[in-house]
């Protein structure tokens, strides 16, 4: 065991993993708080009214851009530093590069916060609110990212076919710089109007589908078999799932702007591609569920595994919902309403958020040479608060969306739809309190695990 972990320690840079995961968690808490503040504004009880630099509109942009670049990129990069060397058997390109990239990423997020809150330099690209002069630097960072993780993947490819996680991550490494360049530069400098709208919608969805999703699934395909100590159920379904995603997902983007002045052929192709992706997603879910068969009792005591399967189920719900609500008919009612916000939070928090939290909780004790997390109570409590909180938010906002959509069709005065939505917005704040409390419990557990001298939960030790 000792020599094995020594080898692994040479393979994996523990420092980089710890740094990125810790910053990712800190940003997660910060952006969740930003979201909660925004929710308070909609409830009419915003605590910083009249202060320009804490204006709710700007806070909201910190929430979205911060969730993308501060939270997800940090968490994912940390988890990639753990997983990629392990399933390829090769080190990342360079440790020094890794530390440079770490500090550059935190600087980019800090600059974005300052630029948006204090300097009024936000960009009007959804999920690309980073100031436009920062975007080329982010693209450059992503090229470094490609080299850093591409090196072990490329070397492993020389020896033989890559494990499924490798396909997802390889594709992601190429896609991400292209997508970020496309979405931030083209609508500003080369396109206007409907063309720019088409680019922007492709960007929003490609960031989810070509960065977040492949990293997340790549990590899932690694962690789930490792935790359950059994292989994935089907290689064929893995292939189908990956190539289905790779072909159909990039074309989804225009579904963000249906019924807009974008030419209809692009809109129809987006709807078709979105429904097609749902089939690819279903094949992936079948694979994971069949892998679980026979080992389901592990979900009872293994919290990281539970996070992963909860997220997987929420993922399927979101994509299934999407296959229906992407149709032009459904869009008449739900576009611009809170239904979409509920959908977005179920996937971003309920799936990707829970996944990274589960994976981080799995690796965190190992990073600090502890056998288990510090406290089972905190571990379980965090899971249930987070899970119930996001589910409550989802049901709440989905209902709110229907109320708003039909109210608008009914030509009630606008203020009526605002007043009808207020109970839903109050409830959403309550769900937000649950989610933030869960995150704080989770963070406390992390802190204690990292700093405890011995501190092992006897209950957890008995179960691992």
């Amino acid at each position: 065991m000792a020599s094995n972990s020594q080898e692994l320690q040479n393979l994996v840079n523990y420092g980089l993993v710890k740094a990125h995961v810790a910053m990712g968690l800190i940003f997660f808490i910060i952006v969740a708080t930003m979201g909660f503040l925004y929710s308070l504004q909609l409830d009419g009880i915003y605590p910083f009214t009249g202060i320009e630099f804490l204006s709710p509109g700007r806070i909201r942009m910190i929430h979205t851009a911060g969730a993308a670049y501060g939270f997800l990129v940090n968490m994912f990069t940390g988890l990639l530093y753990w997983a990629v060397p392990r399933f390829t058997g090769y080190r990342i390109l360079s440790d020094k590069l890794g530390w440079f990239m770490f500090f550059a990423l935190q600087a980019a997020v800090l600059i974005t916060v300052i630029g948006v809150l204090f300097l009024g330099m936000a960009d009007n690209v959804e999920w690309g609110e980073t100031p436009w002069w920062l975007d080329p630097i982010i693209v450059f960072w992503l090229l470094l990212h490609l080299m850093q993780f591409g090196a072990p993947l490329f070397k492993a490819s020389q020896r033989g076919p890559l494990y499924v996680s490798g396909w997802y991550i390889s594709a992601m490494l190429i896609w991400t710089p292209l997508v970020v360049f496309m979405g931030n530069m083209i609508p500003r400098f080369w396109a206007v109007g409907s063309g720019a709208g088409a680019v922007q919608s492709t960007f929003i969805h490609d960031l989810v589908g070509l960065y977040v999703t492949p990293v997340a699934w790549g990590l899932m395909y690694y962690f789930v078999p490792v935790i359950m100590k059994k292989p994935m159920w089907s290689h064929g379904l893995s292939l189908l799932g990956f190539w289905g995603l790779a072909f159909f997902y990039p074309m989804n983007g225009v579904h963000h702007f249906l019924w807009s002045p974008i030419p209809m052929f692009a809109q129809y192709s987006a709807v078709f591609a979105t429904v097609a992706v749902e089939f690819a997603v279903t094949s992936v879910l079948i694979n994971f569920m069949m892998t679980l068969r026979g080992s389901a009792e592990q979900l009872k005591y293994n919290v990281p595994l539970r996070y992963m399967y909860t997220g997987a189920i929420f993922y399927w719900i979101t994509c299934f919902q999407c296959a229906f609500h992407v149709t032009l008919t459904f869009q008449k009612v739900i576009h611009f309403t809170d239904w979409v916000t509920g959908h977005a939070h179920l996937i971003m928090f309920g799936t990707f958020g829970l996944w990274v939290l589960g994976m981080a909780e799995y690796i965190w004790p190992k990073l600090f040479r502890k056998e288990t997390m510090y406290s089972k109570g905190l571990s379980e409590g965090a899971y249930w608060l987070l899970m119930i909180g996001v589910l409550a938010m989802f049901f709440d906002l989905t209902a709110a969306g229907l109320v708003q959509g039909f109210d608008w069709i009914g030509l009630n005065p606008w203020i009526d739809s605002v007043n009808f939505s207020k109970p839903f917005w109050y409830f959403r704040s309550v769900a937000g309190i649950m989610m933030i409390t869960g995150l704080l419990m989770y963070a406390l557990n992390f802190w204690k695990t990292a700093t405890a001298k011995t501190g092992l939960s006897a209950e957890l030790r008995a179960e691992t």
Partner: protein
Amino acid sequence: MGKMERFSFVALVAGILFFLFADFISWALPMFVLKDIPKKSVEDLAAEAISRNSTAWSDFKKLARYYPETFKKLCQYEEAFSGAKKIPENECKPNGKTLAKALRIGHRWYVAEGCWNCHSQMIRPVSNETLRFGIPGVSNTVSYPSEYNNELQAPVLWGTKRIGPDLIREAAVHNVGWQVAHLYNPIYTSPGSNMPPYPWYFTKDSKGNIVPNERGFGLLTYIMWLGSWEVKPPKDFRINIKASNSAKVEENGNKNLAEAK
């Protein structure tokens, strides 16, 4: 199968080929289809507003008349990020230059405040939106591509959520007084609204009244410009009839009558 599972194959086929194909269908081909629509600069938009005597122009003149101190300060105001430069005193009156400057400043702060996160700027041909936004019979057309082909929609401001109403036909809906009061504190005009107040776009003038500052002036100009290209321009009802121009006035009057029919 083995070859498909290697880095180079995945990177080339999935990473590049599939991505380019999807981009082609999603936006490159649409851009090509729409390529003949001219792109207008802010100066073009200002010139258009003046030549058509749109409500954006008349509202801008009203703002200049109601808030002369702020208008003077607007000419002096400089802001690198939106390209706003000083305008010399002899040109500091409502004209194409000052209107363009106000639009630039207003657009910049509309984006900076994230107004586009709560207010959309796209009317869809469904869900009775044409009846709700704008004024039926005056400005109720569905959003069309050429109205977004300008510098102020690069990137587009179509929006993602409607917590507040759509603004792309706003010019037809509210007058200057309403806009000023609403921006300062939305509850003054819309009780129950959950839009935040924006007092930092206002200042006190020399008499102690609350007036828009330079940024506020620009923001109000921009908001009242939205949709003004769709609104039928107001006919100036104050006509100066002299012997020298009575024939012209009668000719104009007949033309107006014919148009109104």
